[in-house]
C-alpha cells in the first residue's frame, strides 16, 4: 500500500507536470519480461575462451615461487597470465578522480593478503579446463601472521597488511591516521550531563547478491580496438581502470553495458574488465571472465564490517548535548572505495539530529580479509543502525516515547550541522509525524504541531567554540603505527594460528567506549568564543579553511 501525501509541502511543488510524476511503464520492461534484454553474458563469440584465477588459500603469505609448467600442458589451456603481464600492476579505483594511493595489484604474485586474492589467471577453452589447470599449479607459500580484527590491526605490533598503508590505517589528508569531525566540546558536555549513554555496535559484512553475477567479455574489434561487454555499474570507471592498468589509450577500448541485473554497489570495482581484455590481447580470442556464485560471495567485495562506539551526553528532558563516535571501517586488504565512504560517514554525523557538541574519529583499517566495497547505503547504513539503536537506548533510559525523543533532537531548516553547513530542505519531522500517525503510535499534540521550517533559532544555527587536537598525527618521521588507536583495553595483538570458532564464543567483555587519548588536546578558537552564548545571532560564518589535499585524503603523487 502506498499513498502520496500531497498535502505536505504542497506550496513548495508544482504538481501540474506532463510526464513527471506519472507511473510510466519502464522503457525496457518488455525486453526484461520476455528474456530479450541484452545483458553482458548474452554476447557470445565463436571460440570464446574462459578465464579463471588461482586464488590464495591463505589470509597472508609471501609467495616464494610459482611453478606453472604442469598447468601449461593441460588440455585446453591457451595462456597463463602472470602479474608481470599486467603493465601497471598496482591500482586504486579512485585514482581516476586523482585520489588515493595505488595499493592493489591486479594479480598479486609476490604476496597475498586475503583468502581468495588472485595470484594468476588461466585462459582455457572451458571453465572446467581452466580450473583443472589451476589445480596443477604449484605455489610455495611462506605463511605470514595475519590480522582479522580492525582494532587489533591498529596495534603497534600487528602484521602489516598492505605495504602502501603503514600502520594498517589510511592516511587522511596526509596528516592523521583517521578522519576527524570536531564541533564544540564534547568533554565539557559530558561533565554536565544528567546521563551518559554509551554502547558498541557492529555491522556485519554483507554480500550485494545481484542475480546477475559480475563479469565481462572482451573480444578483438576491427581497427586494433577491443570491445568489452560488461556488467559494470560505472562504464567509464571500468574503462578508465582497464586503460590504466593495461597502459592502452582509452579510445582503443570500446565498452558496452548499461543493462545490468542488479548491482547494489558490488559492480563498481572493475576487477573483470582488465583481465578479460588482457586475456583477449594475449590470445587474440574473445575471453570471458565471470565470477561464479562462490566467488561472488567470498571473493567479490562485500559491504564492509563497521564497528561504532557511541557515547552521548543526555539531559533529563531528552536533549542530547554531546555525541562522540569512534568508528572502525574494516576495509579488508585494499582500499577500493572505503576511504571515500568514511568521509561520507563523517559528513553524515551525528545523524539527522541537532546536537551542540559532536566528535568523531573514524579509522579506515586494513585487515587480512576480502576487500570491502560499496553497497547500498555505503558509509551510512552501518552508522544509522548504531545511531538509531542508540536513540532507543536513550529513550529507554529516560522512560520517554522514542519518537518524541527524536523530535526533541530532530534537525530542521536553518540548523548548523556538525560539518559546519546549514541544514536546508529538511523533512525529518514530517516523516516521523506521518509514520507515527500511520502506525497509531501516539505522540503529544506539541510534537504533532512541529514543523521542519522552525529550526535555526539561537544556538541551533551557530558554530560553537571547538576543541581540536592532533591525536593520530602521521608524518614528520612518526610512523602511524606508533600512534595508539583510540582504544586501550584490547590486549596486545597475538597472532592466533588456529582460532577455533566452531561454536560462537560467548560475548566477550568489551570496552564500551574507547577512551580518548588526552595528549595533544588544544582549544582552537575556530569560531569566536561568544558563539556559544545562546543570544548571539550575529556570529560571522567561519572562513573557509585552507585547501587540503582531497576527498580521500591523499593526493596521488
Amino acid at each position, binding site marked *: *500500500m502506498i499513498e502520496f501525501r500531497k498535502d505536505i509541502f504542497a506550496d513548495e511543488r508544482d504538481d501540474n507536470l506532463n510526464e513527471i510524476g506519472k507511473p510510466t511503464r519502464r522503457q525496457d520492461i518488455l525486453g526484461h519480461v520476455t528474456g530479450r534484454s541484452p545483458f553482458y553474458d548474452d554476447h557470445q563469440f565463436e571460440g570464446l575462451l574462459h578465464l579463471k584465477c588461482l586464488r590464495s588459500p591463505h589470509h597472508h603469505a609471501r609467495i616464494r615461487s610459482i611453478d606453472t609448467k604442469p598447468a601449461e600442458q593441460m588440455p585446453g589451456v591457451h595462456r597463463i597470465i602472470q602479474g608481470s603481464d599486467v603493465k601497471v600492476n598496482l591500482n586504486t579505483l579512485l585514482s581516476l578522480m586523482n585520489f588515493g594511493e595505488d595499493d592493489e595489484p591486479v594479480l598479486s604474485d609476490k604476496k597475498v593478503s586475503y583468502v581468495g586474492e588472485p595470484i594468476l589467471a588461466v585462459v582455457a577453452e572451458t571453465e572446467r579446463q581452466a580450473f583443472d589447470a589451476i589445480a596443477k599449479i604449484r605455489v610455495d607459500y611462506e605463511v605470514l601472521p595475519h590480522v582479522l580484527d580492525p582494532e587489533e590491526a591498529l596495534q603497534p605490533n600487528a602484521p602489516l597488511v598492505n605495504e602502501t598503508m603503514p600502520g594498517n590505517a589510511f592516511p587522511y589528508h596526509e596528516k592523521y591516521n583517521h578522519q576527524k569531525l570536531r*564541533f564544540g566540546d564534547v568533554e565539557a558536555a559530558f561533565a554536565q550531563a544528567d546521563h551518559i549513554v554509551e554502547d558498541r555496535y557492529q*555491522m556485519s559484512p554483507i554480500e550485494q547478491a545481484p542475480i546477475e553475477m559480475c563479469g565481462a567479455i572482451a573480444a578483438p574489434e576491427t581497427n586494433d580496438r577491443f570491445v568489452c561487454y560488461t556488467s559494470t*555499474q560505472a562504464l567509464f570507471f571500468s574503462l578508465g581502470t582497464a586503460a590504466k592498468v593495461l597502459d592502452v589509450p582509452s579510445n582503443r577500448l570500446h565498452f558496452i553495458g548499461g543493462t545490468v541485473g*542488479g548491482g547494489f554497489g558490488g559492480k563498481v570495482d572493475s576487477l573483470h574488465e582488465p583481465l578479460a581484455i588482457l586475456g583477449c590481447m594475449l590470445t587474440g580470442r574473445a575471453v570471458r571472465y565471470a565470477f561464479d556464485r562462490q566467488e561472488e560471495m567470498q571473493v567479490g567485495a562485500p559491504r564492509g564490517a563497521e564497528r561504532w562506539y557511541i557515547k552521548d551526553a543526555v539531559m533529563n528532558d531528552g536533549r542530547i548535548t554531546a555525541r562522540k563516535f569512534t568508528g572502525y571501517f574494516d576495509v579488508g586488504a585494499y582500499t577500493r572505495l572505503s576511504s571515500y565512504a568514511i568521509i561520507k560517514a563523517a559528513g553524515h554525523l551525528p545523524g539527522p539530529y541537532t546536537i551542540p557538541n559532536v566528535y568523531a574519529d573514524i579509522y579506515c583499517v586494513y585487515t587480512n580479509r576480502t576487500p570491502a566495497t560499496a553497497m547500498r547505503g555505503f558509509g551510512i547504513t552501518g552508522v544509522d543502525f548504531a545511531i538509531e539503536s542508540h536513540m532507543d537506548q536513550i529513550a529507554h533510559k529516560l522512560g520517554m516515547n522514542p519518537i518524541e525523543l527524536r523530535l526533541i533532537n530532530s534537525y530542521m531548516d536553518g540548523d548548523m550541522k556538525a560539518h559546519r553547513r546549514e541544514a536546508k530542505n529538511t523533512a525529518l519531522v514530517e516523516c516521523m509525524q506521518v509514520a507515527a500517525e*500511520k502506525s497509531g503510535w501516539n505522540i503529544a499534540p506539541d510534537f504533532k504541531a512541529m514543523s521542519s521550517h522552525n529550526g535555526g533559532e539561537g544556538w541551533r544555527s551557530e558554530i560553537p567554540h571547538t576543541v581540536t587536537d592532533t591525536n593520530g598525527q602521521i608524518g614528520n618521521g612518526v610512523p602511524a603505527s606508533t600512534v595508539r588507536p583510540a582504544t586501550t583495553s584490547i590486549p596486545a595483538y597475538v597472532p592466533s594460528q588456529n582460532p577455533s570458532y566452531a561454536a560462537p564464543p560467548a560475548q566477550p567483555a568489551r570496552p564500551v567506549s574507547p577512551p580518548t587519548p588526552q595528549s595533544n588536546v588544544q582549544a582552537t578558537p575556530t569560531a569566536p568564543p561568544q558563539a556559544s552564548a545562546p543570544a548571539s545571532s550575529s556570529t560571522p560564518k567561519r572562513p573557509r579553511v585552507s585547501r*587540503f589535499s582531497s576527498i580521500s585524503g591523499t593526493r596521488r603523487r
Partner: protein
Amino acid sequence: MTMHSGRGFAAINYPIGMNLGGDPSQALVHSNPDGKFTVALSSIDLGQGMKSVTRQIAAETLGIPVADVYVDTADSDTGPHCMGSFASRGTHRVGNAVIEAATEARGVMLEAAAEELEVNPEDLVTDGKGNIHVRGAPSRSITTAEACGVAQFQQGKTVSGRGIFLIPLSDVDPDTGEMTPVSCFAHAALVVDLEVDDMTGEVTVLKMNSAYEVGRALNPRLVEQQLIGGAWMGVSHALYETTEPYYPDRSHGPQDFGSYIMPGPGEVVPHDIAILERPAPDGPFGGKGPGEMCANPVLPAVANAVFNAVGVRITDLPITPEKILRGIKANGGAQPQGIV
C-alpha cells in the same frame, strides 16, 4: 513457548550523490527529422529505472510525449562520460544533465517553430502532446515533428543539446571535518511490528508503516518498487545476512544461497508507505533518490522492536535466533517492554 509482540521505530536522513562532489555526468539529446528524440548516456540501468526516469525527464523538458523519447545507454563510443550508477547519484546527477541537454535541444526546436510561425521563440509554449503554439493562441501552432523536420531539412539546424552536471569538489578540513558534503538529503521514518518466539528465538516481522520523503516522486511506480525492495533488503540485513557469520573469524562463510540466508517470498512484509515530496532546490524537478536510503531505517527499527518484545538489545548484526536466545537466557527470561 510464548510469542512476544514488539514494536520499533527509526528515523533517518540520507545524503544524495557522491558526497563531496567532483562527480560529473553528461547527456546528449538529439532529434531525427520527424521529431523523435534520442537521449545518449553512458549511465547504467541496474533495474532501478535509469532509462525510464531520464526518459520522463527528457520528455518533460522537451515538452513532448514520453513515447517520442528513447534513452540509449551505455556504449562508450556514443554515450558521453558519466561517473556511474552508485551513491544515489543517478537520478540527481544524470537527471540534471538530461535537463540541460534537453533544454538546449528544446531551444532549437522552438527557434525553428518560431521561424515557421513568424513569432518570437519566447512567445511559444509546448502542450506536452506534440504541439507547439503561441501562448494564449492555441490555433497558431505547429507540431513538434514539423518543427524538427523544417529545422533539419529547410533551416539547417541540428535539434540537439549537450548537458553536464557537476557539483564542484569540496575540501575537507583535516582538523574539524568541515566540508560541503552534499546538496540535498532524503528522509524516512519507519515503524516495525514483529513477534519473537522466546523458545526458538525466531523473529517474524508482521508489518511495516513508513514515511519516505523523496523530493519528488518522478515516477511513483518506480519509487514504490524501490521502497518495497529496499525494505525487504533491510529486513534481510537485520535478521539474516552476512558473509562472515563468526566475524572477525573468517570461517563458515556461505558459498551459495543455500547457506546465505535471505527472506523468501513468504517473509515479504506487508508495508504501508506514505510518500512525502519536498523538492530539492537542485534536484531534477526536485527529485532526490529513494533507492539507497530505503533499507536503512529497517535495520535499527527491527533491533528496537526485538528489544521492545523481549528486552534483549542486540548490537551486533544480524539479529539471529541464537543471539536472541543467549540474551533471553542472560536476562533470566524474556522481558517484554510493553507495546507503546
